[in-house]
């Protein structure tokens, strides 16, 4: 580990523009006060916090969709996923200025000379590639995804998940490497040897980066924080827009489920049940219904609350004589699509507010919201709130 590597010395005219390991980040020839480890440390901590929040809320969203066998997803609190996924997207967007500012501040290290002197330095600096690449990938693909833009040839969700482990792994290695510099940098005053010629001070720069995070938040968070709706002029979704005032992710036109023939439509409850049911739309409407006020929360971070009326799933299961605690799989009329079917876990199947809804805010569902029948359940990602439901299979 203590092997010292020898590097050629560049000509002095070049050398003075390159920082040296262990010396200040700003190379001697520059007058910059912002390329500084005090800035790097503070922005680094802000990034560690925001990235950890995104990682944890992201894992939570992941297990809802790919639940491990040992984890039962709870149905309560009903608005939990709305909060965790809202926090995920809001925090990720706010991290964009933090990341760009941090990388800007430490950029001279990119041309540091010599690049490394020991094996240990070489290793931790090599881990910067997954850290920087992974961070840019996460924030970049996330920003594109919420705008419905997929300019790549991988599955967004799984690639984003893989990048989150990559980035957090790189972050842990980075923190281990810079912990000492960070602690020393935090002890030094931001004001010491600061600029005095009218440009941004260090504190001013950090303030402006914070302001940038604030502007990004205010102009986008209205996709889920309703009071901000009017200010969120850059939000990619609007919780008040769409058929019946609720946004849509997969339209009936895209799913091929426009103009469902009610004469031919049947809701089937089948599988491990005592009495399989085959119900017409009118028979479903004739069952006793319940109204629940629940948010529909997209994995993309927007959410909108509405009053949903329909038949509790557990009433249907009871009527068909399903064993309590059985696993339930719903299928849609949709022929293709990654979310054609969805599993309903025990806790959700038993919840009184898990409905096969026929009405939204008192009106029959719009085709885009899943007419004739859709699932709406508490604490559940929107992609799993199956629309155009036609079979309930008990396993």
């Amino acid at each position, binding site marked *: 580990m203590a092997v010292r590597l020898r590097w050629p010395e560049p000509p002095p005219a070049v050398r003075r523009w390159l920082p040296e390991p262990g010396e200040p980040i700003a190379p001697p020839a520059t007058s910059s006060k912002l390329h500084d480890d005090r800035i790097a440390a503070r922005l680094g901590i802000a990034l560690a916090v925001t990235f950890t929040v995104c990682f944890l809320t992201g894992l939570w969203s992941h297990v809802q969709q790919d639940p491990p066998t040992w984890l039962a997803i709870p149905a309560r609190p009903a608005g939990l996923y709305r909060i965790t996924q809202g926090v995920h997207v809001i925090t990720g967007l706010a991290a964009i200025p933090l990341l760009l500012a941090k990388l800007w501040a430490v950029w001279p290290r990119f041309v540091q000379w010599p690049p490394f002197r020991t094996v240990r330095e070489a290793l931790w600096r090599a881990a910067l*590639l997954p850290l920087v690449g992974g961070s840019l990938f996460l924030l970049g693909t996330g920003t594109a995804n919420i705008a419905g833009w997929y300019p790549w040839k991988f599955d967004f969700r799984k690639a984003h998940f893989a990048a989150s482990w990559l980035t957090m792994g790189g972050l842990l290695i980075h923190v281990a490497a810079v912990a000492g510099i960070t602690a020393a940098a935090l002890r030094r005053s931001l004001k010491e040897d600061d600029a005095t*010629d009218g440009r941004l001070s260090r504190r001013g720069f950090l303030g*402006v980066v914070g302001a940038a995070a604030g*502007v990004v938040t205010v102009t986008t968070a209205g996709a889920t924080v309703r009071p901000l709706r009017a200010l969120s*002029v850059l939000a*990619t979704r609007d919780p008040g827009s769409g058929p019946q005032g609720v946004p849509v992710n997969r339209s009936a036109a895209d799913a091929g489920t426009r103009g469902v023939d009610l004469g031919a439509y049947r809701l089937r409850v089948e599988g491990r049940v005592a009495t399989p049911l085959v119900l017409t739309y009118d028979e479903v409407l004739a069952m006793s219904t319940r109204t629940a006020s629940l948010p529909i929360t997209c994995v993309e971070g927007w959410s909108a609350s509405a009053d949903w009326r329909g038949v509790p799933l557990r009433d249907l299961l009871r009527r068909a004589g399903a064993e309590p605690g059985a696993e339930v799989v719903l299928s849609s009329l949709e022929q293709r699509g990654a979310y054609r079917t969805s599993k309903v876990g025990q806790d959700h199947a038993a919840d009184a507010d898990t409905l096969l809804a026929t009405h939204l805010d008192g009106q029959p569902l719009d085709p885009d919201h899943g007419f004739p029948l859709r699932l709406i359940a508490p604490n559940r990602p929107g992609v799993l709130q199956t629309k155009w439901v036609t079979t309930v299979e008990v396993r």
Partner: protein
Amino acid sequence: MRAGTAARVLAAVAGVAMFAVTVRYAVLRSIDVRPAVWVRWWVTAAVVHDVVVAPAAIAVGWLVVRFAPRWLKAPLQTALLLSAVIVAVSWPALRGYGRMPSNPTYLPRDYAGGLTLTLAVVWIACAGWAAARLVRRRQAAPLGPSVAAAPR
């Protein structure tokens, strides 16, 4: 210090373990993750950022600090930084890449208008700040700008 060293070693080991989780997941789900494509995207992101984006931002900042008058420097740096971030974040919406005729609830707003409005607020606020700095500077230096004291 010993406890600190142990914590750092532990963090580094955990980091390497997370890399292993990444590789395992990418291989197991290679049909979806497409590891070769995926790696190319994040390596390209890092290279383009470090070779093009960051140097360009540093060059613009350098020009401002070098050539703008004192009273204008900080407000101009601020306006440029905020603008760059706002444009970057709103770019996909502005260009409407994800617009779907079959689903108007994607990108329902007028993003050119929203961006113009946001940037107008930023630039007007920064212009006001610059003007205040200029006035203060004039008041502090009745003999003219050449002998003015530093603002703030």
